[in-house]
């Protein structure tokens, strides 16, 4: 079995998981949600094996390296980290409805990678031949994933707020019982960002150390660096907003969504739309 087949299985598992979470919300049946979590867990395990297998395949080709070196590998790893963070939160808090707002990010990533990205294993170009690659990519993407989860939770927050304003008598009213409370959503948003922010900080720091080691400058205002700093600024604003009156709840949720939009631009937009030093697709 090749890693590529396993990644297809992963994609299908995340699709099944998304459908089950949708069915849970549609049927208002919490028990169904457990199946959604199991489907996500199954996909996660398969994906973990597949990533390991891809790593081994690169060694079989004679130029072994961690599967974190191009756009395809980074998108796959991003999906993996999103599901990892989701499973941790799900295990801790058991709010299954969050799955419907988070697993689609992972599904979208896997589908994009499998259907339209070049899955070939390429040897590492000289610039990437460093142990810092692993530290830098892992910390950045775990951070990104935490922000993805926070974004999903913030969308739930805004949706719930909207539903509550419409009153509980609309057909969607019953849906509210499936959602965590507003306070809980606000708190989970904060918690996810509290995990993501230190990881992003570590990602930027490891990137700076690596840049200094490879190019002789720890900071050169390259678009990728600048956008990572923009993301950092947005979440720093979010964290300070938490202790400022009037910035909790709705505004915090909006900041979290804006932060994730900036994250996605930092990750993909910079590589696809702007030019700079960081043209590996990671």
């Amino acid at each position, binding site marked *: 079995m090749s890693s590529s087949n396993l990644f297809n299985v992963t994609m299908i598992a995340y699709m099944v998981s998304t459908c089950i979470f949708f069915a849970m919300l549609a049927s208002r049946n919490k028990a169904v949600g457990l199946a959604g979590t199991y489907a996500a867990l199954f996909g996660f395990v398969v994906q973990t094996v597949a990533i390991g297998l891809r790593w081994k395949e690169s060694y079989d080709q004679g*130029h072994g390296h961690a599967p974190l070196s191009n756009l395809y590998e980074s998108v796959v790893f991003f999906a993996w980290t999103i599901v990892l963070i989701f499973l941790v939160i799900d295990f801790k808090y058991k709010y299954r409805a969050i799955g419907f707002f988070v697993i689609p990010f992972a599904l979208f990533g896997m589908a994009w990678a499998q259907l339209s990205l070049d899955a070939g294993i*390429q*040897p590492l*170009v*000289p*610039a990437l*031949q*460093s142990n*810092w690659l692993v530290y830098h990519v892992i910390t950045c993407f775990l951070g990104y994933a935490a922000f993805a989860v926070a974004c999903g939770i913030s969308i739930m927050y805004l949706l719930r707020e909207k539903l509550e304003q419409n009153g509980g008598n609309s057909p969607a009213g019953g849906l509210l019982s499936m959602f965590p409370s507003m306070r809980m959503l606000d708190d989970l948003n904060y918690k996810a960002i*509290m995990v993501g*922010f*230190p990881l992003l*900080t*570590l990602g930027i*720091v490891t990137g*700076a*150390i690596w840049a*200094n*080691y*490879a*190019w*002789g*400058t*720890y*900071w050169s*205002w390259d*678009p990728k660096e*600048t*956008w990572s*700093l*923009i993301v950092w*600024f*947005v979440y*720093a*604003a979010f964290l*300070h*907003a938490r*202790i*400022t009156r009037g*910035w909790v709840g709705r505004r915090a949720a909006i900041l979290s969504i804006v932060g994730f939009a*900036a994250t996605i631009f930092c990750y993909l937009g*910079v590589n696809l739309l*702007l030019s700079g030093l960081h043209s590996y697709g990671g």
Partner: protein
Amino acid sequence: MTTNKRGLAQQLWDFFCSLRLTIFLLIGLALTSIIGTVIQQGPQREYLATLSETKIRLYSALGFFDMYHSWWFILLLYLLTLNLICCSIKRLPRVWKIVSEPVLVMDETFQKSLTNVKELKLRGAKPELKDKLTALLRAEFANPVLTERDGEYHLFAQKNPWCRLGVYVVHLSIIIIFIGALIGSFFGYKGYVNIPEGGSITQVAARGGNVVDLGYEVRCEKFSVSFYDTGAPKEFKSLLTVLEKGQPVPGYKDVPVIVNDPLTYKGITFYQSSYGPTDEGAKYRITVRDRKTGAPTKLEARQGERVALPGGAFLSVMEATQDVRPFMKEFDGPGAQVEFTPAGGKPQPFVILSEKYDSFNAQHGDDLIISFDGMDQKYFTGLQVAKDPGVLVVWLGCLLMVIGICMAFFMSHKRIWARISNDGVTVGGSASKNPAGFEMSFDELVQKLNKV
């Protein structure tokens, strides 16, 4: 008047202490930072050609072509620094007091401010209860401090009080990083240098235009590039030797420098950055045959050098390549663009290829057939050169930032008070973070205390 003045100072102070200013500055920095990623920084001529006159004038006036060093961006950074210093000065003393002078005694009023309070069902002699509770707190939580007041015993124990300072550690770390960056910009430089194989340099052109003396000599012994089977580059390698007064420095002879593995000598670091073929020093090998006799003559030429050919003509090689395929699809092997000047004639430019294409080569050259045997290609290595005495300060700042963030986010200052009076035993607790999690561990602790 004085009250007005004090009022103004107070207003200014309040302004710089405000968290709203922090949020405004952070979002402002985030938004303005986008500009420099969209508009080319230090723009190339090709890029400027795509912009209209008005745009160019506007962008230069606003400093958009070097946005991150423009006065207003630097001002925003200074304002943020001032803001975080003021915020820290305002809030630190209060937090410091909580850390350094903990409330040792839980009285009635203080008790009301706590969310976690439980009465224990313990009965017994006060001194004995005090000893038992002390032992249990020490084992299960932290070593308590005992205070006796009005015949009552008060116990106080705490964990991680220092984590309350995490926020200020982060603020300090940002200032340290800025200081490191300033040290680098005042006492360091970034430069770039090309060294041909066999050549050496003692100076570097720094960014900003000045020429910096290294104080020693760096020689490029050899440059090599290797490729994977796919054609992608595998390794760029320069062998560098550091020389002082013309003599190689022990341990710095033939040092391999590759991407991600630089060479540092006396605080100056050399990074493998680029490379290219250099015509300087390249030798071209040419064979000339007489059309009638076929007698070959081997010649060597440097770029642009006029070489005398048998029969009185001259030849100079303008440029050459090891592989003509990219330029001439039907041919392969080496090729050269030459200028042939017959004796007493006008110069004729044409291309010559290797011997196997002599029918091609025979189209020119009058009495001679000139073929190109190849060249001893030399490379130059392109090195980034950097001296940054502030970099260690920046790393210190980064380390502090990570530590500070972990303190602020993942550690909680937990406090437990116990009052042992004639009415019984009351326990109170509070935590700086995660109230739900603390409530559970507090209830657990109370259960254990109830069993002593």
